[in-house]
């Protein structure tokens, strides 16, 4: 080393580097760069809150301003993870309260957040600005009231998809009159009534409010007033339902929407009265994102709406849109990047709408920028999948859910291996894939050989044998998250690819065939993995070792087994010999 590079210069350079992976690369250059980098890192993303402890995170990064944490595995969204599995935010927040008095942002996903945790946030972080709790639970409106009352500089409060105990209707009124910094508010998940006057006053005094996503309980009558007070809105979530039809409400609403010249994103529309939809037409041209997945709008009205949204980039919609609606979408919305079609009647035995694979094929043909797809339907064919793959080699996310399990190609009655094979073969940048329908080990052979950029894979009711799992674990070089339910995968593939598991964030397997014995073996051999066995029916020691475990969650960690497990979760012993028997 002939010269020394001034730290301040390097710090300045690093301030332009945001990406986590770039920062991680920087810290590997040499010891001094590692040291400089850790002191100036301001944002931290922890994809699995049990992969590292708060203490380790704080020791390495002493000056954080923004932290994102994720708790429960993704399958918790579908009730596959038992309640009280874990994912508690409090220990993190308590540790941060001591270490980062200047923390500004907390983004939590699938975590359990108590009112005590919210109180800590409210009282300990003097410059707190952003609180996002996506799909969280464990707190009430009392906790929100404390946030409102104390966080003077709060810019964003987002409770998307969270379960909130609605105990007080006037928590919004706890924002003091002097508080004017709100920029983004998402309270869609709140179920009970809120004080509307409080909401109106809040909206009126916050000139930088850009995102406003309301709950079902906010009546339509209130909307024109709110919109008039916030014409600068960029994103709106609201219902369009009223118990009584007012003739002048319609014109007031139409006028208010026209006044929102900058509105780009729209969602909500639960219980929409179709006759009110035309009030939206003036803003359609400016919309880039439209989320109608909660709106029971039928095909004809959907077509009218969507045909006017020529600048649409993202559409989430129910399958009421049907194939004809998707054809219209393909013709009108050439800038479409993301499509999600959700089922209106997921548990019905018979199809209730005329939505088939053809709709998706149309959109794949007509929308050149489409790269992200989530599609629920009731039939699929290999030829359709191959067509989609050839039309759209730029797909990065492809999640197909054929509602009927084990559903074969409806034309040939073959498995859908070849179709999904075409997807992974042609879509070379595919990062996320969810499979469904009738699938053999063959599809996993394709995925293993072609899915080199695949980071997340979701499997259900698929495959024939361990070979399937082996193909995936040995072939998918970039795999980070693998979640499997009800597949005939067992010990062999798992144990032979044990080392792979340390290169991944996590593996979830439920209703598969991994034996308790294999779990114990894995736990012993791989000390940097937590092998968690979930057994609600009783301690796995009570049944023979060959019996398969109910649910298995394996993740890499640098902090050893966690200490907050409920009674039905066991981490496999890393050093069974050291235990006194």
């Amino acid at each position, binding site marked *: 080393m002939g010269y020394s590079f001034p730290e301040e210069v390097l710090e300045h350079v690093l301030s332009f580097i945001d990406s986590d992976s770039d920062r991680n690369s920087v810290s590997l250059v040499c010891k001094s760069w590692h040291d400089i980098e850790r002191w100036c890192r301001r944002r931290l993303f922890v994809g699995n809150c049990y992969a590292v402890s708060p203490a380790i995170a704080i020791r390495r990064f002493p000056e954080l301003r923004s932290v994102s944490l994720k708790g429960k595995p993704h399958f918790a*969204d*579908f*009730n*596959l993870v038992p309640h009280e599995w874990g994912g508690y935010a409090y220990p993190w927040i308590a540790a941060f309260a001591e270490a980062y008095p200047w923390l500004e942002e907390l983004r939590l996903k699938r975590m359990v957040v108590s009112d005590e945790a919210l109180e800590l946030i409210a009282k300990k972080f003097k410059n707190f600005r952003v609180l996002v709790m996506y799909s969280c639970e464990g707190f009430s409106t009392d906790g929100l009231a404390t946030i409102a009352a104390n966080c003077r500089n709060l810019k964003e409060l987002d409770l998307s998809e969270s379960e909130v105990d609605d105990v007080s209707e006037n928590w919004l009124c706890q924002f003091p009159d002097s508080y004017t910094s709100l920029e983004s508010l998402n309270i869609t*998940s709140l179920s009970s009534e809120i004080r509307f006057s409080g909401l109106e006053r809040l909206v009126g005094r916050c000139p930088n409010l850009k995102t406003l996503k309301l709950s079902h309980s906010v009546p339509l009558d209130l909307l024109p007033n709110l919109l008039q007070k916030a014409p600068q809105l960029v994103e709106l979530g609201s219902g369009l339902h009223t*118990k009584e*039809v007012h003739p002048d409400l319609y014109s007031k609403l139409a006028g208010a929407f026209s006044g929102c010249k900058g509105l780009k994103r729209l969602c909500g529309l639960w219980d929409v009265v179709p006759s009110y939809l035309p009030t939206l037409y003036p803003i359609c041209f400016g919309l880039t994102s439209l989320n109608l*997945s*909660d709106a*029971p709008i039928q095909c004809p009205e959907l077509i009218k709406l969507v045909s006017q949204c020529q600048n649409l980039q993202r559409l989430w919609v129910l399958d009421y849109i049907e194939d004809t609606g998707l054809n219209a979408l393909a013709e009108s919305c050439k800038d479409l990047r993301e499509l999600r079609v*959700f*089922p*209106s*009647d*997921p548990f019905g*035995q018979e199809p209730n709408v005329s939505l088939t694979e053809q709709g998706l094929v149309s959109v794949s043909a007509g929308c050149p920028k489409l790269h992200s797809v989530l599609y*629920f339907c009731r*039939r699929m064919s290999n030829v359709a999948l191959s067509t989609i793959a050839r039309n759209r080699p730029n797909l990065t996310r492809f999640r197909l*859910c054929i*509602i*009927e*399990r*084990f559903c*074969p190609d*409806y034309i040939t*009655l073959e*498995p859908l291996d070849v179709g999904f094979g075409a997807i992974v073969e042609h879509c070379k940048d595919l990062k996320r894939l969810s499979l469904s329908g*009738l699938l053999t080990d063959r599809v996993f052979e394709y995925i293993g050989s072609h899915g080199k950029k695949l980071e997340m894979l979701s499997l*259900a*009711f698929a495959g*024939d*044998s361990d070979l399937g799992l082996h193909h995936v674990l040995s072939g998918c070089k970039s795999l980070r998250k693998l979640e499997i*339910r*009800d597949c*005939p995968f*067992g*010990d*062999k593939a798992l*144990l*032979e690819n*044990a*080392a792979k598991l340390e290169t991944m964030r996590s593996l979830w397997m439920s*209703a*598969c*065939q991994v*034996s308790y*014995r*294999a779990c114990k*073996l894995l736990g012993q*051999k*791989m000390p940097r993995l937590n092998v968690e066995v979930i057994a609600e029916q*009783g301690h796995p020691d*009570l*049944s*023979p070792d*060959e*019996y*398969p*475990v*109910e649910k298995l969650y394996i993740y890499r960690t640098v902090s050893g087994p966690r200490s907050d497990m409920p009674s039905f979760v066991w981490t496999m012993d890393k050093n069974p010999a050291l235990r006194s028997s």
Partner: protein
Amino acid sequence: MQDFKFDTMPSNTADQSPDSGTTAMSLKDTELTLGLPGGAQVVIVGGKSCSKRGYTDTVDFRSRCCSGESSAKAEQVDWPGNEISGPGNAPDSKAQVVGWPPVRSGRKKALKSCKYVKVAVDGAPYLRKVDLEVHRSYQQLLMALETMFDCFTIRRNDLEESKIMNPVNGAEYVPTYEDKDGDWMLVGDVPWNMFVESCKRVRLMKSSEAIGLAPRTPSCTSTT
């Protein structure tokens, strides 16, 4: 890079086929599986051999699977998984599997909750079921009922009042419903949403029998 051989272990696909979650063989008998009572209950996992399920279930499974004939592959994979069902399932109803299809529970709440109630018409030989959630007003409900039962029509007079009557014998009907408390009320008295909340079943009663309920003729106006 650690790579280790798979130890010799008893095959997972032997006839033992332990179902996930059972703790002892004796529990197998009490286990909930698909299949009619008395039928063979063996559930095979692992893609080998055939499933000895009750006939109705095999038929049920095939007919559900998008086409008339399912391949051999389709037939043999059938998981105990997380299925919740009881013996004696009617062939039409399929056991609902936990977490499938993968829709979020929040989303499930947002969808129709399907409030089916039985509808009986005096003199009609059969009961029908109607989903109250699908309709938004009494008017809509009555129209749906008119389609469902062909023994009556709804006459509307100039005053916008509706009468339900049988065109054949001229008998008039009074729509009544049983509420949560077990009381029989006249349809139309309370706001629509309240009605949907509390209605347990509906009965179109012959006017001559509708004694004891409110004396006036119910008028089904367009209350939402």
